[in-house]
């Protein structure tokens, strides 16, 4: 079984690197860690980087998870190989461009590009935000799936994810005590649906709601509260149609052995217990 420790970074291609950088800093609030060649690296916490925009195709999206060490990386590569999932070993240059010691890349059953990384760089310098959004760090992703049941099996049997709750067929899966690190949403093709950063308080959510709406950033869902994770949230549109989320107060699942996933019906109050509804542009 592939042991995912935590989400590590997201890499997104874009044709407008300057525009994406402006959004990531002035609107989202991330800090530029480095500009290197055709890439800009952003920080959201103590990690060296958690988001990278690079000049390229917006459909070129990657989500990376950290694994324990080199041995775990080799074991993971072996597992995937024996299952006939194509695995690519990262080159030294590619690892450097991801600020990790080593990594392997493969595609999940839907075709999302996933990387498993070891020894991601930490920064010695404190994270300092570009704007006062209250970000405490990159926390989770929503991925599109062409078959939620099949992909849930992949993440929970080939990898070590556990289902915390389901909304209809959508599993919210954890790899540690945080309610979810991976959420799957149904679609007709692969892609990252949303990128989540945690913020410090409810006030941060409401402040950002007004800040972003005043600047014509499209609010696609919220402010609201997920009955599943308990988190208060806000979803908004970024470059190339990517949805970004701020949330605070995600529940922790401490009782690994005892926790039974709940089944929420696929209806608006399962997504927000305050009564907000997602806009049509929240997802494909």
């Amino acid at each position, binding site marked *: 079984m592939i042991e995912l420790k935590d989400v590590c970074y997201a890499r997104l291609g874009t044709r407008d690197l300057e525009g994406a950088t402006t959004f990531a800093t002035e609107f989202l609030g991330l800090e530029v860690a480095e500009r290197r060649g055709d890439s800009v690296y952003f920080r959201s916490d103590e990690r060296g980087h958690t988001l990278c925009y690079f000049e390229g195709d917006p459909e070129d999206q990657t989500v990376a998870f950290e694994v324990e060490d080199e041995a775990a990386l080799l074991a993971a590569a072996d597992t995937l190989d024996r299952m006939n999932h194509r695995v690519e070993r990262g080159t030294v240059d590619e690892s450097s461009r991801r600020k990790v010691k080593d990594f392997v890349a493969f595609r999940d059953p839907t075709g999302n590009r996933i990387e498993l990384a070891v020894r991601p760089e930490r920064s010695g310098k404190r994270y300092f935000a570009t704007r006062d959004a209250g970000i405490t760090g990159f926390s989770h992703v929503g991925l599109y799936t062409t078959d939620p049941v099949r992909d849930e099996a992949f993440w929970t049997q080939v990898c070590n994810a556990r289902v915390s709750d389901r909304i209809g067929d959508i599993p919210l899966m954890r790899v540690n005590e945080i309610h979810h690190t991976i959420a799957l949403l149904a679609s007709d093709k692969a892609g990252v649906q949303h990128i989540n950063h945690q913020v410090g308080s409810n006030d941060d959510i409401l402040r950002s709601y*007004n800040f972003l709406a005043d600047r014509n950033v499209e609010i696609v869902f919220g402010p609201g509260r997920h009955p599943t994770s308990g988190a208060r949230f806000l979803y908004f549109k970024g470059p190339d149609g990517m949805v970004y989320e701020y949330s605070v107060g995600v529940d922790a699942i401490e009782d690994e052995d005892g926790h039974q996933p709940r089944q929420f019906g696929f209806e608006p109050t399962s997504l927000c217990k305050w009564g907000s509804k997602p806009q049509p542009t929240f997802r494909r």
Partner: protein
Amino acid sequence: MIEGADVAFVRVGTQDVAGHGAFASEMMGLQVVTGGGDQAWFRSDIRRRTLVFTSDDSSSVGIALSRPEQLDRIAERLRDAGLNFETHDRAACDRLFVRKGIRVSDPSGNVIDLVQGPHHAGTRFFPQRDNGILGLEGVALRSTSPERDLPFWRDLLGFDLRDRAGDIVYLGTDRLHYRIALYPSDRSGILAINFAVEDLELVMQNKYFLENRQVPIRFGPGRQPASGQIFLMAEGPEGLLYSLVAETAQIDPKQHRPRQFSADQHSLCSWGSKAHGVSELKL
């Protein structure tokens, strides 16, 4: 000076009792109190009745003193200051559901019923919908000059000046940051009735509930910097604002010194929300 005083009731004088009654019931979900006849009566907490709509009285705010002596002392100060007031007789007290009371106007013309012993109900408060309301907490009043009115409220009635935002004045009586706010306006009257709700959850639930029913949200959800209060102001008939509030700060009356928040919109909401269509709510 009036330690423990609180806002006990709000009476709204109106020709549209039915419209106000329907809003308070169906939109805000307050509990109907029977016996109103031509008036519409509601409660929001353990008290017998906290909101009245009537066509045969002026609007007034009921401020309850905890001890009868406090009421007597205020009456004395009003007399010494040469201000007229009316002492409620038994019949008037019965109509107001209080033990004792006097009625006086502030310099702007806002009518205040200073009372003692507002009635409590034997039965628990039960709202008509899950609005999370805990009770009547305070009132925002229009004032034709809060600075001119301040000596009346502070020196005669005994309120503490808590803070100012621009020319807006916040007045308190105990550890709760404020119960009465005076907003500069071209006229007197009740601007908003503050109902405490359980927490942010309920403020937000109410926001979506009311928006889905096309109730105008004039301000909020927001957080008022002076009081720390989370608020949502919904507009009922004739521009009457219902302000659902949570997390109003507790302060130490002996230590708190009045602050002057600058005259800009962030002094009314630290979350950056803006008021719509209510001139008193713009700094």
